[in-house]
């Protein structure tokens, strides 16, 4: 869908699909919070889960990142960045919450 030979129609359709899916995911997340029907931790998990899915949707349909072989340079870059980000964020949270718990 993101190949160089796509017709203009295909590309517009791809953006439109991405836009609609993203809208639906956003709406679902806001709805889950606005009309709470689960325990708060479950709602949080749903919201974060939807956020992850929507991120993937944006990468796929707006930034045209795919798993195809010729796109691997950028994919590797993004995956490596994610690894570092996860290390840094989770490390920070674990260490400082641990410290907080021991100081309280």
């Amino acid at each position, binding site marked *: 869908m993101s190949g*160089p*030979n796509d017709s203009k129609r295909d590309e517009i359709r791809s*953006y439109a699909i991405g836009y609609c899916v993203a809208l639906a995911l956003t709406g679902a997340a806001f709805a889950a919070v*606005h009309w709470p029907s689960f325990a708060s931790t479950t709602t949080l998990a749903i919201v974060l889960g939807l956020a992850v899915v929507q991120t993937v949707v944006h990468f796929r349909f707006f930034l045209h990142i795919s798993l195809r072989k010729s796109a691997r*340079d950028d994919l590797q870059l993004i995956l490596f960045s994610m690894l570092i980000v996860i290390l840094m*964020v989770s490390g920070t949270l674990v260490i400082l919450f641990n410290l907080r718990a021991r100081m309280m």
Partner: protein
Amino acid sequence: MSANEIKHAGLNLGDTDELTHGQAGSAVFGFWVFLMSDAVIFALLFATYGVMLPATVGGPTPASEYKILSAFLETLTLLTSSFTFGMVSVAMKHGASRRQLLSWMGVTLVLGAAFLGMELHDFTTMFGDGAYPTRSGYLSSFFALVPLHGLHVFFGSVWIIVMMVQVMTFGLDARVKINILRLSLFWHFLDIVWIAIFSVVYLQGLIR
């Protein structure tokens, strides 16, 4: 080198402009790397926000300050602007008229400005409630994270204006094309950061 070979992944000009496509390789890849470096800055601010969330010190809390409606409208605005910027890319790639290209850029710019307006309105409301950054650690971290995204949107908007002027001055020469490609990456990237903001900051704060 065949025209179909992709010099860089993601957004590209494909075979509609082979020459520029070739030059764009390192330019666009370099911008991707920059964005990932920027992503680390946001990630660390998110981590800091997470750490400081409990530090409300008896002051305003997320639940008392965030408004779900305005967060939703801001999200819609930014998401729509991402779609309209997609149309800018399509127009550029498939040789649409200059007027069409400029009008899609103009629409994106208006949406960006609308987003900034709503966000500023949010902040002034919060200030009115006594929720300013010097009040507590939690508010400090909020006002470092969310306005930094706003600042990015602001500079993105300035960049759109600059590119509109360049399209009018130079037409679509190679450098203009490459810079619009980079700008589109920037704009879509900001939307992704916003997904994290509305989920982690606004929605998490409003969960009852």
